[in-house]
């Protein structure tokens, strides 16, 4: 004859066995890996990273030095035009430099510009946003006024103003203009992240687990780091995933307008800027970097979308 306790055990048994248990992050990772576009994107990004790291090894020629007897404006070999040089697979630019080598070295700029400012933006934005949301008061008010003002500027134009203003200065010449671009992107970007974090913190700080942590004596710092941050993480990760391509795009556009990376250092935007006047005679000098930008941007977008879907709790199957 069955007894109550055995019933309980049996019921518990049957329920535990019926579904595979997964932790929140494990579940998200699983869903991300099932998204083919996102996985494809990750592969492309990883490849871009490798190309950037191993650039000196991979590039057949020096990207900066102008060869002694330059064959300028050569077209890629596969176009079959009479302006090709068998030494240069994708042709040369207006100064005779090999396009492939330039493309490979330019990937370094893009990778660096994508990730480093994003770290700065998030480090700054998250700490300030979290403090503002958590402590409230004048810090919060100040932050809100600030964000209102920055939001009134069209993002890119603000970037442009900063970069254009300072590129003639000594600071603007550091790292061929890269440092200035980092700083400009960081200045423009941290505000949005701070606002997002603040919003998250405001929503979370009223929840019971914060009260519970406080009641056992956790300090504010600890609450912010160990309780609020992990819960606010999901939308932050997605925003970061989209901030990287946004930074890459910012640099490319600046370089295209002529105020980005200082030549002769190659960047994809820079290559477009240089090749553009002669577009009709050698379109591929412009098309190749354009394709590189497109591919990398698409890769990041797929990964970002995949992350967003994977981390969205509403879509739990």
């Amino acid at each position: 004859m069955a007894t109550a306790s055995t019933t309980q055990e049996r019921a518990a048994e049957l329920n535990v066995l019926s579904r595979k248990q997964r932790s929140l992050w494990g579940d998200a990772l699983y869903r991300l890996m099932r998204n083919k576009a996102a996985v494809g994107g990750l592969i492309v990004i990883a490849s871009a990273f490798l190309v950037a790291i191993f650039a000196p090894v991979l590039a057949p020629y020096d990207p900066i030095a102008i060869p002694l007897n330059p064959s300028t404006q050569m077209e890629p070999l596969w176009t079959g035009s009479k302006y090709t040089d068998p030494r240069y697979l994708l042709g040369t630019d207006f100064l005779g430099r090999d396009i492939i080598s330039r493309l490979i070295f330019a990937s370094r700029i893009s990778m660096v510009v994508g990730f480093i400012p994003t770290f700065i933006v998030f480090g700054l934005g998250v700490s300030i946003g979290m403090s503002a949301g958590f402590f409230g008061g004048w810090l919060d008010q100040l932050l809100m006024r600030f964000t209102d003002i920055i939001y009134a500027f069209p993002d890119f134009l603000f970037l442009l103003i900063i970069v254009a203003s300072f590129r003639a200065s000594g600071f603007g010449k550091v790292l061929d203009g890269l440092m200035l671009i980092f700083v400009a992107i960081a200045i423009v970007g941290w505000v949005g992240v701070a606002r997002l974090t603040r919003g998250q913190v405001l929503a979370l700080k009223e929840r019971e687990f914060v009260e519970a942590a406080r009641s056992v004596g956790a300090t504010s710092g600890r609450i912010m780091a160990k309780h609020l941050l992990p819960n606010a993480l999901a939308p932050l990760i997605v925003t970061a995933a989209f901030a990287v391509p946004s930074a890459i795009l910012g640099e490319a556009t600046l370089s295209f307008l002529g105020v980005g990376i200082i030549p002769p250092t190659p960047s994809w935007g820079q290559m477009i800027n240089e090749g553009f006047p002669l577009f009709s005679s050698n379109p591929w000098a412009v098309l190749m970097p354009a394709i590189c930008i497109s591919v990398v941007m698409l890769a990041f977008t797929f990964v970002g979308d995949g992350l967003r879907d994977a981390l969205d709790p509403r879509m739990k199957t």
Partner: protein
Amino acid sequence: MADLLEVTDLHTQFFTRDGVVRAVDGVTFQVAAGETLGIVGESGCGKSVTALSLMRLIPQPPGKIVKGSIMFDGQDILKMDDDDVRGIRGNNIAMIFQDPMTSLNPVLTISRQISEALELHMKMDKSEARKRTIELLELVNIPSAKKRVDDYPHQFSGGMRQRVMIAMALSCNPKLILADEPTTALDVTIQAQILDLLKNLAREFRTAFILITHDLGVVAGMTQRINVMYAGRIVEKADTVELFANPKMPYTWGLLRSIPRLDESRKAKLVPIEGLPPDLIAPPPGCKFEPRCQYRHDVCHEKEPDLKHIPNSKPDHEARCWGTQEGGWLVDTDWRREIGDTRVIEEIKQETASVTATPETPGE
């Protein structure tokens, strides 16, 4: 006379990435004209899906009515083409949904939302429909109906919104109304009002009702017959009075026992039914309630019992339990002794007595 509604061996399933959910797994019942049937069960037992299946409102992927027949007024709804089904919806069969806040369109006036059905099924023009809409609102006791007819849903309170839903359901004089948890989202005091309203309407218009709820208290005062559902099947069928007086299924005992009582001593603990409902994708073999049943024997685990008439009860009382069926070990069990204090059950019995009078069936 043939029943208004005859559902035979209905199977509705949902095809998901994790497997096939057998939400309604072989359900058979009838509703006579003018009768109120209660369908009672926990969340997830299939009662709402049954109602939606009756109107073929199951979203086609991922759901599908895979088997069975639904005879309404002599025609099989499952065999009709789409246009005919639409002709029935809102017209011969209407539905009242659980949450009036989300079930009404927030950007349309309630006048528009009620007139829609009138214009469609009763072929009224705009002014006729509007007049009739105001009449309907007055019928469900909405004050200042003429002024409020052009208001939006958010301008009404919860109870008022549910009255609007009821007015909408009644608008084309349906023969059958499906009420899916009509009072669950409302305050208790409003609940009583709405239930009273439904009872009076049922009596006045001789509309058949299927009242779906998880609350035994609600069905007690409203229905003539009750089906208890569990895991997609009916596990007990009886007249309301009979069910409360003489329940014959351990699940029903569990439900009755778990009703919290105001008159209980503070020390008395709530007595829930242990465990959780079964997984509808891979249900246990044998009786679906067996893992949680404290009266189980080995046979319960091996084979699923059929829904059969049981000894020591009224003739149309059926239960799906090896223990209470002919030759079972629970046939002579006095369930009252099992569940303890029966005062509240006595009160319920008194209430049900007031609903015993079956409404006259029209045309007889």
